[in-house]
């Protein structure tokens, strides 16, 4: 009992400052989505894709194009993952999941590239190769996040499971 508290409180200590994305287990990929949906899915409404574009723009403007698609894909990977909310809005607005939601940067108007990137991710492209987290190693202070199994780096972002 005491061991557990100590071990876990230690883990809590680690979770400092700006955490971009958190919690959850590992899933391989969401690739075969559209015509293979594992459960009847509601069509992704244009409004949800617009919200996704905003997140891409706020989180990844100035990043390489495939890095922008990858950020959108992380959101969709979470939607399909059992340990995360199952809507785009649920994932994006999950408390403290994304810094740009907390600081209001999400409400900027996305440019065409961010919109195309969000659309590509919805259409099934995932340059993150199934990532559930991404962070900027120059800013991330959470050792827990940094310790997630790393998949790759695109531009300034590290993508992880």
């Amino acid at each position, binding site marked *: 009992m005491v061991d557990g508290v100590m071990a876990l409180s230690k883990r809590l200590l680690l979770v400092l400052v700006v*955490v971009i994305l958190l919690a959850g287990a590992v899933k391989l990929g969401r690739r075969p989505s*559209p015509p293979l949906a594992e459960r009847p899915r509601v069509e992704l409404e244009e409004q949800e894709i617009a919200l996704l574009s905003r997140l891409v723009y706020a989180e990844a403007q100035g990043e390489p194009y495939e890095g922008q698609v990858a950020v959108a894909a992380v959101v969709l990977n979470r939607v399909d993952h*059992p340990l995360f909310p199952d809507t785009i809005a649920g994932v994006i607005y999950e408390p403290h999941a994304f810094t740009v939601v907390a600081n209001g940067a999400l409400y900027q108007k996305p440019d065409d590239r961010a919109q195309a990137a969000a659309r590509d991710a919805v*259409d099934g*492209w995932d340059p993150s190769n199934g990532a559930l987290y991404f962070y900027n190693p120059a800013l991330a202070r959470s050792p827990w996040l940094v310790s997630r199994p790393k*998949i790759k780096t695109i531009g300034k972002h590290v993508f992880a499971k």
Partner: protein
Amino acid sequence: MNRVVALLLSIALLWGYGLHLQRRDLLIQRENDYRRSFQELAHHLAGLEDQLARILAARSKEQRMLLLLGISHDAARAQGKLSQLPLTVLSLERTKELLRQVGEYTTGLAFDLASGKEEDAGWTLRSLWQKARFINGEMEKMQAHLGDGPNRLVELERVLMTGALGPMDAGEPADPLAKDLIMLEDGLGRLPDERVPLPSPEPTYVEPSGPESTEEELIRAARDFLGPKRVGDAPLTVVGPSQGEVPTYKLEMRGQQERIVLELTRKGGQVVWMISDRIIAERHLSVEEGMARGTAFLSSRGLAKLAPVFRADRGNQVAVIYAAKEEDVYIYPRQVRLRIGLDNGDITAYEASGLFLPTGVDRQARLTREEAARKLHPALQVTNCRLVVTVGSRRDEILAYEFCGRMEDEEYTVYINAQNGREERISRGDLERGFRRLSGEGPPPGGQ
């Protein structure tokens, strides 16, 4: 003079007090939102526990069905409420995993019960119930700690986000709620772990066999894939290794018009995906011409056994999903996606991770098309039908007849399992995630 100072001072004080009130109101509002989610979470967890206990004693089909539906409903609601609380840093993986298992398992049991398949689920349900009972006990402790002060959840949020958990040397976080949550996860991990029979949510990708490709081989494969004309003398380089469904190397081509990124398998040097960042500003080809370019591209890359099954118009581009077609069966999981620029017909994006998914499902249909069609709603006017391998209602791979049809001005697609006649899935419209279904073989002979 003094009067002026006094006046200014009181204005400043009033203004400051006003700000304080505003901030307090915002905090209270936030606390209220969190409390509501918390209480509703507790409500659904209690309902979950209660129904799991009751189903152990239920005998009739009717009662069991009602309870199964109630349990899966409460599991889904509890999951939703949990994700509205500012607990993201704590991850709570075990709690969330339990809710997922309960939800999926009971939904599956309800499906089995309805289709007359009876399996003894008592042991698994009992183990899930014990875990739910444990969670509810912990929730009660948290409820008691919530009564301690006015802004408990906002304070918990602050503590979690700043890492200000109190004296660490003491070994315990100072915030009682944070401690409760940690104990909850810890305790769940200590309960006996009964394996819940659920299909794996993770598809298993298979890496191609053979020796690891050299840098030269990778560059040659990428050049062949893109076509020598498109690459020209643009630099094409290996960026580095990457990890994903299968181990890959990332390559990059920096051309005049476009920057292309590709990932190739380390063994065999096969392209898994490719994306160009070129913006397509003009349109000279029709969608059909574009698709013809796509089909030609695939067959020249040794992928001739693929047939277009879904399509989406994307401005000056068209996105097409091709599926493997073997002896008139469309294998949906083995798919390739293309995005084609309608200015010059170039492939602007490619996605083929589905080719690395093994499919083991029996391709021999036990029902004929006519027999399967008899399982459909009699008013459904079938316009198209094809035999497909797809993912069924239980997330398992199935062989099914895909019937597209109309009923009262609505379009539907219904999947009938070709082995056992089960109605696996019904979707509405001819759109799936923004992709339009391309026609299959035409209506089944007779019957309709």
